[in-house]
């Protein structure tokens, strides 16, 4: 058994290495490719010893910000997707299901409609507040129901909160043209246009979210054996769900506020990770984060290439790539049942 067990652990480690390598490659391609392709030398020069050449400017002011944004948002959405599937025991859980995207959308629109905040720096924070409100509401509704926050109550509360916030958003954009314009752009999902400074402001939230996610994984493993078994193994269910919802809200709320409601990343990332490593959330969460970031970067880079000199937003590209990949995954029954 020892040999076989370590064989299994070895496979998981190797896959993690491969995923880190793919992510590094995706980062390089994201900086290098676009309307004007850059060579490795130019990228290096632009990153470490920029002296104002044309290549340096492209790297510094165009490619680097969107690469960092896609990287950070992808890590966050990937890890959050894995946690969401684990806590709702629902293989199609994504930010939409738990109402968090709708909460962020409502926050963005409300900041314009109610107080006239129109700068990116301003409405991103309202988006985050909206997401946090939605996440808290979903957890509270779930937890206050008899029997506590279970996969079913979380999913149902998520659907209700989603409906509520979507309706509020729809109501506001109906009255406010400017809010509608901003919302229209935000809702597609994009990583271009956000200044590097904004992403860096979001970074601490995502770092805390990732740390909470890592802390949550052993409990999630126990919970996947059923609540009774988990409790007998010493897991405090309520605390564990609260920790998970906090991580999900921080990660998704921040990513969605900055980039718009981007779907598919957490969904596809989690399914691929589960396929590679089996039902162990310590690995699924880590690998889903890596895959999520790689997917975001690849989709954004491809979006720049397919419609040159214009570009397709990352949200659109992800759906175009993600849908066929996902259908392929669904056809393997094994990848779906949690």
């Amino acid at each position, binding site marked *: *058994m020892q040999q*076989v*067990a370590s064989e*299994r652990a070895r496979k998981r480690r190797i896959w993690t290495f491969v995923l880190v390598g793919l992510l590094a490659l995706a980062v390089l391609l994201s900086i290098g490719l676009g309307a004007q392709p850059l060579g490795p030398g130019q990228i290096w020069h632009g990153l470490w010893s920029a002296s104002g050449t044309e290549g340096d400017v492209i790297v510094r002011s165009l490619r680097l910000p969107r690469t960092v944004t896609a990287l950070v948002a992808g890590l966050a959405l990937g890890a959050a997707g894995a946690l969401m599937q684990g806590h709702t025991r629902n293989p199609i859980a994504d930010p939409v299901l738990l109402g968090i995207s709708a909460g962020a959308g409502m926050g963005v629109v409300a900041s314009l409609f109610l107080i006239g905040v129109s700068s990116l720096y301003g409405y991103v924070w309202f988006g985050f507040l909206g997401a946090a409100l939605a996440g808290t509401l979903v957890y509270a509704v779930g937890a206050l129901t008899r029997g506590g926050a279970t996969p079913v109550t979380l999913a149902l509360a998520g659907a209700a909160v989603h409906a509520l916030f979507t309706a509020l958003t729809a109501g506001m954009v109906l009255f406010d043209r400017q809010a509608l314009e901003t919302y229209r752009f935000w809702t597609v999902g994009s990583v271009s246009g956000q200044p590097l400074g904004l992403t860096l402001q979001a970074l601490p939230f995502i770092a805390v979210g990732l740390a909470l996610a890592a*802390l949550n994984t*052993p409990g999630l*493993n*126990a919970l*996947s*054996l*059923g609540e*009774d*078994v988990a*409790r*007998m*193994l*010493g*897991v*405090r269910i309520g605390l564990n769900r609260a920790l998970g919802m906090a991580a999900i809200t921080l990660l998704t709320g921040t990513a969605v506020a900055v980039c718009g409601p981007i779907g598919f990343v957490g969904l596809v990332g989690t399914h691929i990770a*589960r396929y590679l490593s*089996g*039902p*162990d959330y310590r690995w699924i969460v880590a690998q889903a984060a890596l895959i999520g970031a790689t997917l975001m970067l690849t989709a954004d880079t491809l979006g720049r290439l397919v419609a040159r000199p214009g570009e397709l937003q990352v949200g659109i590209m992800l759906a175009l790539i993600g849908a066929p990949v996902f259908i392929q995954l669904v056809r393997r029954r*094994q990848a779906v*049942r*949690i």
Partner: protein
Amino acid sequence: MTETTRTPSAAPQDAGAVRPEVRLRAEGLTLSYGERTVVRELDLDITNGTVTAIIGPNGCGKSTLLRAFGRLMKPTAGTVLLDGRPIHGIPTREVAERVGLLPQSPAAPEGLSVADLVARGRHPHQSWYRRWSSDDEAAVEQALRATGMFELAERTLDELSGGQRQRAWIAMALAQETELLLLDEPTNHLDLAHQIEVLDLVRELHLTTGRTVVVVLHDLSLAARYADRLVAMKDGRVVAQGAPSEVLTEDLVAEVFGLRARVRLDEETGSPLVIPLSRHGAKAADGA
């Protein structure tokens, strides 16, 4: 299961530690689901180092009682004492180090291997600052050997027979290394050979490690054969308790199950055997 004699799963008792005679005690215990009361003012002691089988008809509250012993249910009245302390005042983690409970038909995520399942039994012994150790490794290996699952450790649960799967779950509970083990119908949905396999395992665990076991069983004859003590329940109350040969009588079967039966002593084991009588007399199958 010859492995067991070579490497018995470590007795979790600290050497020399004096254990109270009564490990679990229900005092005036009332348990309800919402408005529906399932267990009423029940008193029961579980003695250290015994195998106790709880029997009774469907819905008599035996599984509910077991859940309360495992702190999975809060009493509406009365208390459960674990080693003399109210179990609801003991931190979750500490309960998990002393009591293990295997619910009826537990479910695992698809693709989970036996080794990974058993490793999850180590959860109470770990925390964010204390990761997987050689103690954990040893406990998992011993649990796998004791249950005869060592060779199957890398199989996924979906690939196993019902009896093997049940043994894998018991191995998980063993890896938890609790002195008390509560099993809720571990023979559910198993054929006769697998039922014996699982009960033999439970008996061996008791003999080699001195674990205190409480098991809910449906088959009266098997319960009498494998347990030191029988507890018969009806309508949320204990009707009789004691040694199997004293408890399991024709009158008791009639009272608890409303079933006419003959009770004979098995020549091999000396334990009572229950032979149910059919309404159709001697030959139930002759078309009457």
